[in-house]
């Protein structure tokens, strides 16, 4: 019984981080309608940033996470201006190949630079005991940070002017432009926010998960599946989708084998698509 509770709780704790990077992915996809294959690599780079800042320079993880957010938010803004702003109007296949090659470049460069080895921080083994249930300290903190960020994003999108502009651009960018909304600025902010969430997720993930250069592809699959399970076009859906996938992963890893994790994630994804094609919280199947 304890094992089951521990597994489910660990799933939920890791799921918070999955949730925020799924939300970042959904935000970028929802506004630009581009599948950003570099999203997973951004998380991976943020994990390296977190790893080196904490292990080499002995910085406090709490200080590293905001720094990662700012750095990646700025990198996102730069990437948007240099690449995605131009890609926005190209056909799907061009967008696809451009972001896939960018992802391959980042992965290969990281492999060349840091090597293939997995690196993990000492904080990975920090644990605490709650009523006989063993939990990773940093996973608990990670969930807290994720919930804070998700809440902050919700406030930003629902209670501020730029948030309203972003939502308008997501719903109907032509109508938004007709209302005098600067959709390019809305896209810029949304894309940067997505990158910022990737930065936060990566720096948090580094405290309890080993980092390898190729982890980006795995994370991307999860973000992908998380968004579609939760329902394309719904940010809360993406968060819940991420949580759900993490729970499935943990249960599979505990009761079967870690090698089968992604196979079960995909089965869940298929099941939900067959039962409810719009995803759990999808308003409309506006995906293509």
């Amino acid at each position, binding site marked *: 019984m304890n094992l089951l509770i521990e597994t489910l709780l660990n799933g939920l704790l890791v799921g918070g981080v999955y949730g925020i990077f799924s939300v970042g992915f959904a935000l970028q996809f929802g506004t630009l309608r581009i599948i950003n294959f570099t999203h997973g690599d951004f998380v991976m780079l943020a994990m390296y940033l977190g790893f080196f800042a904490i292990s080499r320079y002995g910085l406090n993880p709490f200080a590293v996470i905001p720094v990662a957010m700012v750095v990646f938010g700025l990198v996102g803004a730069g990437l948007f201006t240099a690449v995605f702003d*131009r890609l926005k109007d190209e056909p799907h296949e061009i967008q696809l*190949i451009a972001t896939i090659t960018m992802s391959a470049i980042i992965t290969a460069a990281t492999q060349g630079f840091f090597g293939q080895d997995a690196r993990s921080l000492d904080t990975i083994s920090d644990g605490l005991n709650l009523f006989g249930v063993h939990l990773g300290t940093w996973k608990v903190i990670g969930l807290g940070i994720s919930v804070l960020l998700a809440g902050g994003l919700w406030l930003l999108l629902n209670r501020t002017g730029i948030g309203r502009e972003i939502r308008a651009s997501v719903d109907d960018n032509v109508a938004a432009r007709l209302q005098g909304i600067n959709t390019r600025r809305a896209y810029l902010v949304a894309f940067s926010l997505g990158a910022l969430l990737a930065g936060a997720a990566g720096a948090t993930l580094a405290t309890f998960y080993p980092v390898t250069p190729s982890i980006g592809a795995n994370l991307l*699959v999860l973000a992908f599946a998380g968004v579609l399970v939760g329902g394309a076009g719904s940010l809360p859906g993406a968060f819940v989708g991420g949580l759900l996938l993490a729970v499935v992963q943990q249960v599979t890893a505990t009761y079967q084998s870690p090698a089968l994790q992604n196979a079960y994630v995909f089965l869940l994804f298929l099941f939900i698509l067959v039962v409810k094609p719009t995803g759990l919280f999808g308003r409309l199947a*506006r995906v293509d």
Partner: protein
Amino acid sequence: MSTEVAREPGAAMTARQTMLARRPVLTVTAGGVALLICASLPLWAFPDDYSVGILLQIAIYAGYGLSWHLLAGYTGQYSFGHATFFGTGAYVLSVLSYHTEVSPWFGIGLAAIGAALVGLIVGLIAVRLSGLFFGLITFGTSLMLGVAANQLVDLTGGAAGLPLPLRVDQPEMMQFSTQVPLFEITLVVVFGYLLLTWGLLRSRLGLLFRSVRDDPVAADASGVNVRGVRLGALCLSAAMAGLIGAIYAQSLLFIDPESAFGLTQSVNAIFTAIIGGVGSVLGPVFGAVAFVLLRELGIAISEGNGVYSVLFYSAVVFVLIMVAPKGLAGIGRSLAALRGRSFGKRVRR
């Protein structure tokens, strides 16, 4: 959203189609001559083993790119996991050759059928959905089959891979003293694919394919069985990829889960088709030439370090795609259009 974007390459295709329709005999003759020239390449231009190996790789990736392109270019279904079908074909052939005495001549046929069956199963779920879902389902399937190939050690040899039995110089087992015959076989397959694609463009079926891509709602309203057409195209494309995958395994006499079902193998199909330019029949062939040569160049300048080789060709493709989003065929077309016009004027198709 997708309809307006997807229509753009379609316009070019229709123009091309009318041009080809006018001179079918000429096109087929030109194709036959091109086949003979390509087939004789190992005799006079590239006789050494290394070059023949490169030619074989180009032919394999051309066929693989053509199978992806048939699906994406003509029915608008972007498969992110085409390795599903490539890998299925490769494993069907390898498992048959390893565990039984079935000749690869039958094996490659069975590989195509096996891949088509996988395509049918995937399709029954995937064609109900479109766009991103379709891509993700194929991607997820490749992931699952990769896990399966890793886990079913008795059948597939697991992560270590499966070596095919060596039967030196036995043409009936599709093993020859050089790679030249295998190159010729692949070449015939590729020309078959080209003929198929070209024939499709000119046929009613091709029209159905494009109607489904350009405007599924209007196609549905006109009595087109949209799901049926999508499913048929997927099975056809899967069979093509499976056959090529089988040839790939036969050329290496080895297969492992990563090279069969890995993300890289899925991306290779997209690379090949897109570098050449989507919407052009010959696009994937140019794409395969560029892709294989770039990869070899990458391996050469990085002195065999796979990571830097990937870095090199990804960077080149990225720059190419940002500079010339219409692909190599697009550059060719722009150059052709430039001829006879004032230089410097930007020509959009």
